[in-house]
């Protein structure tokens, strides 16, 4: 029989409701693993140890009653990214400027998780304010990839990705502004979905770039992601940009891939794509064909503009979103003797923000200023519409699009962190999806010669999460990547 932590979240839930294990046993198992593995991978920023155990005891009692049966995640530990607001638990975005800030309120997704019976086991590491693709830019230090601790786990939700890969928890939440769920999912060999913009409430997600980002699951399998998404998705009156579209039974997936029309955007297979990645994705496409799908090449010509468009919009929004951190009300405050408000907040921001955050604030501020606004921001919004139109056109012809999530596999820690432009290029295949607003799932489809995981993106039409996830489930059923654990996590 498989060890407890070797199970998917879906299987664990079945075991819990069948009485084959208990919430306390589950929680104790993962807490023990955290204790053992954290020194090696540093995926977490805060472990909610005592409270989580107490919650598990309560869940155990509840599980016996009729009410407990109605809670879809009762007793399930979950890791929550450091930028998602949790009552009484630090929410720092891994920035020095938010040290000491403890929110008095829960993000809507956290409220929904609690109502579903899930238990927050820990908060996870990330690039400061989600600005990065490697989780190296955290004030708590970098997270290591469980498959090779010399490599990055991807980012910015690298803590959640690594925690799932190492089986420190069965479920995790990340957030995805330009690939921050899919990148670590790909690099860590796990599943993660950025849903349609507006599908999941952003209330409680500390904003980096509001018009682009979504909270979403990072899990062992696509099926687990589907189950978790069912709980957190849906209209929220606290988020005006959330959309009132019914939440489907994502975990039911789709009947089969028979007749599914799959588009292969040629731009996803261009220059810079690592051969191993290309080969793995092509193999996965072949598997889809075996399962009855038909493929055709499609083109998204405008995505060559995606990277500058994305960075302009994201930096502009960030420059305004991050203005509230001025030391006056919460978090870090650096007083200047005899200084006024201007001196105090300038000093606080100078010391509180890391260099990448400062860079993006300055660039965004510049791009929004008088005389440049039309040239940059307005133009970027126009480009965004064109990119969105390309996706719409392609998705009118086919059911889903597939392509590599990342052009390469996880790189070594320290190799790109000082070179912002190279780091920005990491996002070339993920940012177009955020600009378009469509859903995209990353599922593991193989590994490179060094054994580092490779992820494939399944992109679908607006609110077609069920289809996207269904394709992922069908693939993982044949590929069975989730049965492989990083050596460090296997024991």
């Amino acid at each position: 029989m498989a060890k407890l932590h070797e199970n998917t979240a879906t299987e664990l839930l079945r075991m819990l409701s069948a009485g084959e294990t208990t919430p306390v046993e589950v929680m104790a198992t993962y807490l023990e693993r955290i204790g053992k593995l954290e020194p090696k991978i540093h995926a977490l920023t805060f472990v909610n140890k005592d409270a989580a155990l107490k919650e598990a005891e309560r869940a155990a009692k509840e599980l016996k009653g009729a009410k407990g049966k109605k809670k879809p995640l009762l007793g399930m530990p979950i890791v929550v990214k450091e930028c998602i607001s949790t009552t009484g638990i630090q929410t720092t975005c891994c920035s020095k400027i938010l040290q000491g800030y403890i929110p008095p309120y829960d993000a809507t997704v956290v409220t929904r998780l609690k109502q579903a019976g899930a238990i927050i086991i820990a908060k996870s590491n990330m690039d400061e304010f989600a600005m990065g693709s490697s989780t190296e830019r955290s004030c708590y230090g970098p997270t290591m990839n469980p498959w090779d601790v010399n490599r990055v786990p991807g980012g910015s939700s690298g803590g959640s990705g690594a925690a799932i890969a190492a089986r420190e928890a069965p479920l995790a939440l990340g957030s995805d502004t330009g690939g921050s769920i899919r990148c670590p999912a790909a690099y860590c060999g796990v599943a993660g979905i950025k849903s349609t913009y507006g599908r999941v409430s952003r209330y409680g997600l500390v904003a980096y770039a509001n018009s682009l980002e979504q909270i979403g699951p990072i899990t062992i399998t696509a099926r687990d992601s589907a189950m978790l998404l069912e709980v957190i998705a849906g209209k929220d009156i606290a988020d005006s940009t959330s959309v009132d579209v019914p939440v489907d039974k994502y975990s039911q997936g789709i009947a089969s891939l028979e007749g599914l029309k799959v588009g292969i955007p040629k731009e996803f297979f261009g220059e810079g794509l690592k051969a191993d990645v290309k080969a793995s994705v092509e193999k996965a496409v072949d598997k889809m064909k075996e399962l009855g799908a038909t493929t055709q090449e499609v083109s998204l010509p405008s995505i060559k503009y995606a990277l500058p468009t994305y960075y302009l919009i994201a930096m502009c929004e960030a420059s305004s979103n991050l203005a509230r951190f001025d030391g006056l009300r919460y978090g870090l405050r650096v007083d200047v003797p005899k200084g006024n408000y201007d001196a105090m907040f300038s000093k606080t921001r100078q010391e509180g923000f890391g260099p990448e955050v400062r860079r993006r604030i300055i660039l965004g501020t510049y791009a929004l200023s008088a005389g440049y606004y039309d040239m940059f921001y307005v133009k970027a919004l126009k480009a965004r519409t064109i990119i969105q139109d390309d996706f719409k056109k392609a998705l009118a012809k086919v059911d889903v699009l597939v392509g590599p999530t990342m052009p390469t596999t996880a790189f070594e820690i320290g190799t790109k962190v000082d070179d912002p432009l190279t780091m920005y290029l990491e996002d070339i295949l993920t940012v177009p999806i955020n600009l378009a607003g469509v859903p995209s799932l990353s599922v593991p489809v193989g590994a490179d010669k060094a054994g580092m995981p490779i992820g494939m993106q399944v992109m679908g039409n607006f609110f077609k999460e069920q289809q996207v996830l269904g394709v992922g489930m069908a693939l993982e059923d044949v590929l069975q990547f989730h049965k492989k654990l990083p050596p460090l996590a296997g024991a």
Partner: protein
Amino acid sequence: MAADDGMQVIIGLEVHIQLNKLRTKLWCSCTSAYHGKEPNTVLCPVCLALPGTLPVLNKRAVEFAILLGLALKGDVQKETFFYRKNYYYPDMCKNFQISQYDKAGGVPICVGGELAFRAGKEARTVHFMRVHMEEDPGRLAYDGSITTSPVAYVDYNRHGMALLEAVTEPELRSPEEARAFLKKLRAIVEHLGIADLGLEGSMRCDANISYKGHARVEVKNISSMKEVEKALMFEMMRQKQKIKGGGEIVQETRHWDEVRRVTVSLRTKETEKDYRYFPEPDLVPVAIDKKMLDAARKAMPELPDARIQRIVKQYQIPEYDASVLCDSKAMADFYEATVKIFDDPKDVSNWLMGDVSRRLNEDLVEIEETKLTPKALAQMLRLIKDGTITGKIAKGLVKGMLSGAMPADLVKEHAVKRIDDAALLGNLAREVIVENPKVVAEVKEGKNPRTFEFLVGQVMKKTKGQADPELTREILKELL
């Protein structure tokens, strides 16, 4: 209305109206009734803009904005957007203000509009550029004057209150006109029921002031209608002196220091803020359809101009009286309520515009802030009519009535009643004659009728105004 020295001033106003008649703030469910509460207690994660929170537009605020837009005959837009106005200031929890914008594709909720009002004897019309919605920042408090206080305190209770900003074209020509304009605007807002303008900070202004041919100066932080005239007069004087002295007016933003009663320079054009407006990504466009407009038209209450005409027709009082009463909705309401139970409309308006208003002005209060009731006023008028008290006695009752007393009770309590005891009045009249031989002599000469009234007044004085004036006159005439 050019000034005597031929220098023509041009004034434009940006009037902020706080929608404190909404139940809640603009983005959250905190109560709008923050006035008088402990600082920093009327707050929630949303209005304090804690990391991760999002604004949710108060729909009723949109309805209020539509009402004002229609009342000012503006063009209410079919779709309107919110923009971020970015600047660092400690009274802003987000260091940007969610507002609306009329450039770069921004569409405020209402474009254009006009307001007709009386300025002295002149009928004037001022046009609006726009009416837009925005959030109120918190409030900074100082130890005394802003320019000398060593500290600043921040109270965020006001943060996130709904504001409407009505921006006029630069068409006002004097501080008096500005006051008359604001008075009319105030009456409209009150009639719409969208704001209680009696509350502190509920109507604030920024003013643009310039002399023809010279640069424009913006004066900010004028906290009430009463301050507007003072601030404008100071700023005009400052500019005029500078121009006359051969100086040049600098285009700048100045701050009205209420305590020191001067305007002080905040920033000049070179250091003018770049607000980096861009569309608010956390809010969706607001669609205003025909249904909403129809509902607003249906809900539109009677406005001051219509009310004046109706009152003139219905109660047969002069238009002047009606328009003075309708300057304040509370006063007009009081008038109509009193007339309903005391059927002498002219008598009621005389008293309200006369002694009651005088008393209110002396105490610097509005009628709705007192405990005076239409019932009390009607009772007083009835006591005069049936001869129980004199008009003079009645005047003395107003103060007590403003504190909630009924006139009949006051009369009983202080035994103030009309004295019609001929024997008593005769005795007092004799005393007065003995005490004022000079006046009596003049009366007897018969040259000046006012000297006789002086003697009547002396008798009144001895009775604390309670003597029946007619009877006193008869007795005095007889005795002389």
